[in-house]
């Protein structure tokens, strides 16, 4: 009843091609953005900004990057954290070495550097596929972290290899409070997510999906494999690179190469598997699930334990948290192997028929 596209006639090409063709979706997105930009800054506390919302948005962006590569172009990658590291260190160095460099340009250059490195490590994808490609991208993970530790120039000769990011100055105004950082991250993420949504339905996106579904068939219908695959690597790494720069500048404030470990790459991979492979929204849902659920359990478990008078130490809580988290991942993957985004899609289909299902 509420979610029905009957009666929404498209009379122009522009109307037919818009990003959200269904009116309810448009309203939904606008409401969501209004809440994120206006409502949240009024209501959320500092803890929510710096510990939950900012990392959630940054990881959603990284997951989005990986989703473009894995979900849309079908190239499995285990190097997302390394590309984030490239973005973070590159943005740091651009900011450090070029006097008066605007911060947003630094972020973009960080992303572009990551894209360049991504293309380099994407080259093996022209010859190898699937799990073998995953192993090749694993090389990126180890090589980049090694490289950042090996060459002190990259961390401005810091004795420990840890970089401490510069101040965030935007148009002469320094961003210090968590709210301001949140709004900056949110703007970048929203812009890039909408750009991604647009990209995946364009010629480029369709070419990626054709390659994903069957690359031989794709090349037969005239899609050139090399530029298509490398473009996917470049765009994906660009997204990861910008996410890495935000991770360093807006979230932690100081990063070390070892922080961008294989574990983090796996985390991003799990986000898209849980959220939904090949779905923009899935990246956000997956990031929310992987990041927020442990924190929720961490807070809820001691409370529940207190309610029932169980003596839980923080170590026990941590162990239970890991167990419950693992069990929930299995549960969701069994119930819905296509991820949380698929659940949302099913809900939408149900809503279309509601209240008169046939």
């Amino acid at each position, binding site marked *: 009843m509420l979610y029905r596209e009957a009666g929404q006639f498209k009379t122009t090409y522009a109307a037919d091609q818009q990003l959200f063709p269904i009116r309810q979706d448009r309203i939904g997105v606008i409401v969501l953005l209004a809440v994120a930009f206006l409502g949240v800054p009024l209501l959320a*506390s*500092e*803890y929510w900004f*710096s*510990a*939950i919302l900012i*990392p959630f948005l940054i990881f959603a962006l990284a997951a989005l990057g990986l989703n473009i590569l894995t979900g849309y172009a079908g190239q499995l990658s285990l190097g997302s954290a390394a590309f984030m590291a490239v973005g973070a260190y590159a943005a740091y160095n651009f900011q*450090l070495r070029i006097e008066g460099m605007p911060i947003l340009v630094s972020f973009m250059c960080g992303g572009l550097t990551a894209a360049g490195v991504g293309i380099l490590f994407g080259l093996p994808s022209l010859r190898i596929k699937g799990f073998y490609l995953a192993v090749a991208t694993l090389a990126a993970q180890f090589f980049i972290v090694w490289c950042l*530790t090996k060459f002190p120039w990259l961390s401005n000769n810091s*004795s*420990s*290899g*840890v970089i*401490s990011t*510069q*101040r965030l100055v935007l148009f002469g105004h320094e961003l*210090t409070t968590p709210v301001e950082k949140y709004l900056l991250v949110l703007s970048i993420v929203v812009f890039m997510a909408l750009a991604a949504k647009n990209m995946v339905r364009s010629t480029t996106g369709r070419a990626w999906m054709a390659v994903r579904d069957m690359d031989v068939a794709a090349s037969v219908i005239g899609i050139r494999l090399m530029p298509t695959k490398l473009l996917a690597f470049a765009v994906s790494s660009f997204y990861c690179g910008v996410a890495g720069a935000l991770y360093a500048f807006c*979230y*932690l*404030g*100081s*990063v*070390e190469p*070892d*922080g961008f470990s294989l574990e983090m790459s796996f985390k991003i991979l799990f986000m898209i598997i849980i959220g939904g492979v090949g779905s923009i929204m899935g990246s956000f849902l997956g990031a929310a699930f992987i990041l927020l659920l442990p*924190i929720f359990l*961490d*807070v809820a478990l001691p409370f529940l334990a*207190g*309610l029932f008078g169980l003596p839980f*130490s*923080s*170590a026990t*809580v*941590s*162990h239970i948290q*890991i167990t419950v988290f693992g069990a929930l991942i299995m549960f969701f993957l069994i119930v819905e192997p296509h991820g949380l985004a698929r659940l949302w899609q099913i809900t939408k289909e149900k809503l279309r028929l509601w209240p008169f299902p046939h």
Partner: protein
Amino acid sequence: MIKNFKPVLAAAAVSLTMLSQGAFAAEEQFFPLIDYRVGPYGSNGQAFYGGFIDYLNYVNLKEKGVNGVQMTWEECETEYNNAKGVECYERLKSKAAKSAGPIHTMSTGISYALIDKSAQDKLPLAMMGYGRTDAVDGSVFPYAFPLVTTYQMQASAIVKFIKDKNAGNLAGKKIVYLYHDSAYGKEAIIAMEAEASLNKFTLVQIPVAHPGNEQGAQWLKIRQEKPDFVVFWGWGVMNQTALKAAQKVGFPRDKMIGSWWTGSEEDVVPAGDAAKGYMAATWNVAGKQVPVIADIEKVVYGAGKGNLQDTGKIGTVLYNRGVSAAVLSVEAIRKGQEKYGKGKALNGEQMRWALENLNITEARLKQVGATNLLPEIKTSCDNHEGSGKVKIQQWDGAKWVPVSDWIEGNKALIHPLFQASAKQYAKEKGITPRDCSKEK
């Protein structure tokens, strides 16, 4: 539905009122404990934080707190993960608004991530034996305290120990610096290089990639180099592997001197016979012969309030290190109460002042039963380290035995390095350093 909820709500309300009653009963000093007991380094964290909490409990039980102020704390598990550490910090921050003990994270990565935040929120961050070492310069880092000693001062003290063994002359000698190829291992290189050019010995640097369970090539190189000493900066499984490898190539273990993260029971026991004679630096001694450790076992564990499940850890190097950290924190609270009112809890700013004006003499250490547990400490605005001394201990096959007195590193050589680095940091971050001569 509502009917079913009622008892739950009632229970929640009751537990909440009970909680709040407890909270307002007496003046309390809150410690935000950003700790770890699970994950790759969980067993280290258990010993350290076990010791820390046991001492706080000990103060509560033995003297009813500091001038009547009870020590309280809340733990948050980080699993040695930087992002989790930040989340924990943000979670505990609001609770530490009224009263805050120093934050001990036992992780260099988490400390780095918290340095700016804690200064902004005016919460003191203690980094005892890890972390950002140039925070020794308190004019740039008012809220960060690398208390007792730092990697660089430790390296310098080890060189001094070797020098004393060689009748005060190292010219023409060869020292190998074998290190974990990470931020931690590289931190001391700058000090070793400075010492090498000052004392005219040859320094050979040999990195070991993480995790370091294969060191054949490195020890082959050491055999070729024939060094007089090996200074050893290992971590985790790398330590026992190095000791076994040294035995294999026949390098004498009593010419190997490790950092304080290579000198715990966990490092030498697995190496068995190969560890005998091996030496390591430490800023706190091991063992139960320290009066306060023995007393904790009696008072806290006697009352059934001990934090450790495995009481075998009492008296180990890391347990005693946790107790030392707590002793310093509690002494700082005493100091702060002298200025801001006895029997009152200290907030972050007051705690900061207290940590910056610590003066723990040998006599005071004796009073709290910590004689020889840790060195004397006197901090100031331009010296947040306060001591710079370590002891060298030797593994006799069953326990650690101190073989030296407290040795101080070469402050005149090392501290200017910190100041230069802090200055650069201030420039990058646009911080105007405080004028230390105006601080009281």
